[in-house]
């Protein structure tokens, strides 16, 4: 049977299937459906320095083969996470990464300092790409100087695995990726959601309270695959790919495009057991194609 283990920049995953931040709660939401410890890793909801109420209702709109959300980083703040949530999930036998979000560089830094101290958290996913907050968020991830600034500041204080999550709402994602790599990121994850709007023609109003929201789901898969491929050709650090992954075939496509591991987001809503199906499907694919290790498949798309 194929070897599913994969090293993403020093972090050894037992398999390449992770869950995407904001789509998997903190894990216990899925206990009834799957054994969370079977996963390669989970990334918990975006965590900020202070408690945040998030955006007003409505926060969700269905779109063709996808959805828009404008949750806006609702969470109880990093201290609450450390005191109350972390102890309740540290028993999972899988890597728990915390998605770190903020509006100011100092806030990012403070959150990371707290997380540094949590033994069971082997790394963070630095979210410089959230489109659903008024200040900061995506702004950090859409220009090279600000991406550099926040990565540098966090790298200076955070000593474990630093994964940086990139925004797709840019002209050149490869340029941002290179800057982040330069500043010492251990891995990159992409893509976050694409900025979109849904309008209710009958009421003539935007569906979301925030007008714009983040587009996720299969609709964005071709764009996500393209960006993973572009970034893989631009950097040396490992990539964690996501964006519309619904099944094992989709996951394989991301791996072929250059992702060492993948994250499953929106698909969790349609089928809370989908991550395990994807895991089994990858295994089956590798065996059927006589590929001994996942690693061999990373970036193995034959282009010419």
């Amino acid at each position: 049977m194929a070897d599913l283990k994969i090293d993403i920049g020093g972090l050894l995953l037992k398999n390449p299937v992770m869950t995407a931040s904001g789509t998997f709660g903190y894990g216990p939401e899925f206990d009834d459906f799957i054994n969370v410890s079977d996963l390669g890793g989970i990334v918990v909801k975006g965590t900020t320095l202070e408690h945040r109420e998030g955006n007003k209702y409505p926060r969700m709109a269905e779109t063709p083969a996808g959805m828009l959300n404008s949750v806006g980083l609702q969470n109880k703040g990093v201290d609450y996470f450390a005191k109350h949530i972390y102890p309740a999930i540290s028993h999972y036998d899988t890597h728990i990464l915390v998605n770190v979000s903020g509006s100011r560089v100092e806030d990012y830094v403070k959150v990371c300092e707290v997380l540094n101290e949590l033994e069971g958290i082997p790394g963070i996913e630095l979210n410089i790409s959230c489109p659903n907050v008024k200040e900061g968020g995506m702004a950090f991830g859409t220009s090279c100087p600000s991406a550099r600034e926040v990565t540098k500041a966090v790298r200076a204080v955070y000593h474990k695995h630093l994964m940086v999550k990139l925004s797709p709402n840019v002209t050149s994602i490869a340029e941002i990726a290179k800057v982040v790599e330069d500043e010492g990121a251990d891995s990159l994850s992409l893509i976050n959601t694409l900025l979109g709007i849904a309008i209710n023609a009958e009421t003539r109003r935007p569906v979301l309270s925030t007008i714009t929201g983040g587009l996720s789901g299969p609709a964005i898969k071709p764009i996500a695959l393209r960006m993973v491929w572009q970034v893989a050709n631009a950097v040396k650090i490992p990539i964690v790919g996501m964006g519309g992954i619904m099944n094992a075939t989709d996951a394989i496509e991301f791996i072929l495009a250059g992702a060492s591991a993948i994250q499953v987001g929106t698909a969790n809503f349609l089928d809370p057991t989908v991550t395990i199906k994807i895991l089994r499907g990858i295994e089956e694919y590798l065996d059927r194609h006589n590929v001994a290790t996942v690693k061999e498949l990373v970036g193995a798309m034959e282009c010419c």
Partner: protein
Amino acid sequence: MKKVTDFHVVEVQHLSHDTFIIVLQGTEPVIAVLPGQFAEVEVPGSPEVFLRRPLSVHGCDPVAGTISFYVKVVGKGTARMSELLPGEKVSVIYPLGNHFTILEEGRVLLVGGGTGVAPMLMLANKLKKAGAEPVMIIGGRSAADIHISDAYHAVAEMHVTTEDGSLGVKGRVTDHPLLKEEFNFNRIYTCGPDPMMKALSAIAREKGVVCEASLENTMACGFGACLCCVVKTTDGHKCVCTEGPVFDTTYLENW
């Protein structure tokens, strides 16, 4: 214990041009559902529908292995559901959310408006079995909206209001004498349009009784994973899918 599992369509009973009951047969033992709980139901074979649709459980019979939903066609998903044929496979995640409190004594009022009727029969049943005395008001625009079978009369004292007066008391549910001079209940349970539930909440407050309302919301998951389905409470944003759908209305902001 929630699960995601396949059912097969037994039948679609059309109650009117836009309202139907869909009965599903489980492929595994069916879990007992409490009144007010809901399910996230797949809409198979519709290219335009991406997400599941949240629906209150209308009936649940673990012995027969069936579950049913009372649905109104409002858009593409519910329209497609109304056309499902016997035998078609439908994936369901259930049971989801909290449930109405089952009092064991006293006269209690159940008010359903529109598809808010969905959880009411099961609720009346449970209340009666527990020892309470359920009285139910069903409201609609006209007689065509009211679909009450003998099963309702068997478990609750039934009342009807229609806006055009074609059946029962003319007016809205809140115009019914039972909600005015004749009010004599320990609690109000309600499900239906927000304005109706807010009016009932106001009456409950005035009368000094608890009002439990089942809320709707736009949901992506239905089980607490996405944080899309929030309602403003006195304690901040809460997810309707996990901390609701049933709320004591005093807990809701601006209610």
